[in-house]
């Protein structure tokens, strides 16, 4: 068996003869050659004979399960696009199939247009695949990630596996672990890399505007809608839509998102006709999504629709030597940008970095390194160059979170209201590991408010 399938003939493995005839008729009318089989054994024999690039595979076959057949096919020819066909009620099985490498799944009943769209998607994916199969295992690190820790190598492998399918990816991880980077890596590694990558932070946009941001609106559909606006879903047509902080999404909008996922159609605010879009969804959250479902803040059906391939990004403190590898790489790069020369970290700094809890993860590490590079000349990063508040995070010196010194009235006296606001917000963020949603909940304001304020402060700080 060759490692790359080469036949244009579509292999259909379906045990109900009339359904075989129906699917075959639809495919042949569209000009495809089709070979039909009714059992797993016949299907595997035909696959060996034909080297089919696309396999339509029923989930329940008389002699074996579709999952077992698909595993055999992908083991022999990993480039094959397997489209799983399933009856209603087998969604969990379909999810399992997607995780195991299926390209797409079709739920019975589906019409000929849906079937042909799935075939066309598979053909596009095949066209975009490299002609000579790459030995990805020989290149364990997935750019632009840095780090060789075992947990990250697993993440890279997962990203590579999921990239070849259309499956929805659900990224979890603490704030600052690189969830958007992960989403971009999935997009760039996929057959959609030539299409747009549109990222939307659901927590940064006021609830009232979010629907319009996702689905777009027509001019005059509400006060202030002075022009037609294309939403993120339409902007991502042919590419990937990344919904960050998905758990911040309003429940009403979750219903609309679910409908969008089920039908692949969007209806802009004020429009009457839906429009079909071809978008891959990747979403992320720093919360525990299942806990959000239990608390009634996230729709269970939407969770199962989205949570097809989970990717968990480990916190920096669990990535072993990655903290050193990232620091050494970035410090050189940043120094070049700032016109300084830094080449290494002092042994004491390495020791300190390994022991810090890094509540803000890689984002916090980047900020620390930028601070060092901007304020110092180099060539080696020493403990004295580190920001003093970082040293306070040392486990041996720092108080436990509940004992962390709180902002007192004395700290606030003599300051402007705007300064006090910033102190209070930054204190809340620090106590919640830089999690904007958590800090927003404590302060009883929307996360979007905090994102906007933080952006404004960062701009102002840069100007100083």
């Amino acid at each position: 068996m060759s490692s790359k399938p080469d036949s244009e003939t579509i292999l259909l493995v379906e045990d109900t003869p009339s359904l075989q005839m129906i699917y075959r008729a639809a495919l042949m009318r569209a000009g495809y050659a089709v070979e039909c089989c009714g059992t797993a054994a016949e299907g595997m024999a035909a696959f060996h004979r034909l080297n089919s690039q696309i396999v339509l595979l029923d989930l329940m076959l008389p002699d074996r399960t579709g999952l077992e057949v698909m595993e055999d096919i992908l083991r022999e020819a990993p480039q094959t696009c397997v489209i799983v066909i399933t009856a209603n009620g087998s969604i969990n099985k379909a999810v399992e199939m997607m995780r195991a490498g299926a390209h797409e799944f079709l739920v019975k009943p589906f019409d000929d247009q849906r079937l042909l769209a799935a075939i066309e998607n598979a053909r596009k994916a095949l066209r975009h695949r490299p002609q000579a199969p790459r030995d990805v295992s020989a290149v364990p690190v997935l750019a632009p990630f840095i780090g060789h820790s075992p947990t990250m190598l697993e993440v890279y492998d997962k990203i590579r596996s999921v990239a070849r399918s259309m499956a929805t990816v659900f990224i979890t991880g603490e704030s600052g672990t690189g969830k958007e980077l992960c989403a971009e890596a999935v997009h760039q590694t996929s057959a959609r890399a030539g299409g747009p990558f549109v990222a939307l932070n659901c927590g940064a946009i006021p609830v009232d505007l979010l629907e319009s941001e996702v689905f777009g609106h027509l001019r005059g559909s509400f006060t202030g809608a002075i022009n037609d606006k294309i939403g993120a879903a339409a902007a991502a047509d042919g590419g990937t839509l990344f919904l960050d902080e998905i758990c911040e999404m309003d429940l009403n909008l979750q219903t609309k998102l679910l409908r969008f996922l089920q039908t692949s159609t969007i209806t802009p605010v004020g429009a009457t006709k839906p429009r079909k879009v071809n978008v891959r969804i990747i979403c992320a959250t720093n919360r525990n999504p299942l806990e959000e479902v239990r608390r009634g803040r996230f729709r269970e059906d939407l969770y199962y629709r989205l949570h097809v391939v989970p990717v968990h990004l480990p916190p920096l403190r669990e990535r072993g030597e990655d903290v050193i590898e990232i620091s050494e790489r970035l410090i050189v790069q940043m120094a070049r940008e700032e016109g300084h020369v830094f080449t290494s970290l002092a042994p004491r700094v390495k020791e300190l970095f390994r022991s810090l809890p890094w509540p803000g993860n890689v984002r916090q590490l980047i900020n620390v390194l930028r601070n060092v590079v901007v304020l110092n000349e180099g060539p080696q990063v020493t403990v004295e160059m580190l920001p003093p508040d970082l040293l306070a995070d040392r486990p041996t010196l720092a108080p436990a979170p509940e004992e962390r010194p709180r902002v007192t009235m004395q700290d606030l006296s003599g300051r402007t209201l705007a300064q006090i606001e910033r102190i209070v917000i930054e204190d809340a963020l620090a106590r919640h590991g830089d999690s904007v949603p958590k800090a927003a909940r404590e302060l009883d304001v929307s996360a979007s408010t905090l994102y906007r304020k933080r952006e404004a402060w960062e701009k102002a700080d840069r100007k100083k």
Partner: protein
Amino acid sequence: MEDRFLMGSPDTMPPALDRAVLEALFAMGDETLRAALGAQLEADFARLRAVFDHGTPYEVGRAAHELKGLAATVGAARLADMARSVDAVAQGLSAVALAAVTAPLKAEISAVLVSLAEVVADTPRP
């Protein structure tokens, strides 16, 4: 099925088969496909009905699973719903209970077969 109408089923009861769905399937090919697919559908529904007569709970569950996909595809929505229900419970039922839950299913298959024959012969119901 005819008995159900005589026993007072409302006149508004939807047909066993959505003719438009089936016609759309037939329209994918010529008269040969119409005849071949009609005959194959008849054979498949009859085969599945036979399983409900004599099958073990496992076999009935498998048949119900197959039937729900087939029925939904050809526009037999009520039959698909009934098959879905049987698929969900079949494997935990005794023989007596199984006979009770499959009886209406078999009757509905018969109704679908009648409608199917009419559509294949292109003789719409008056």
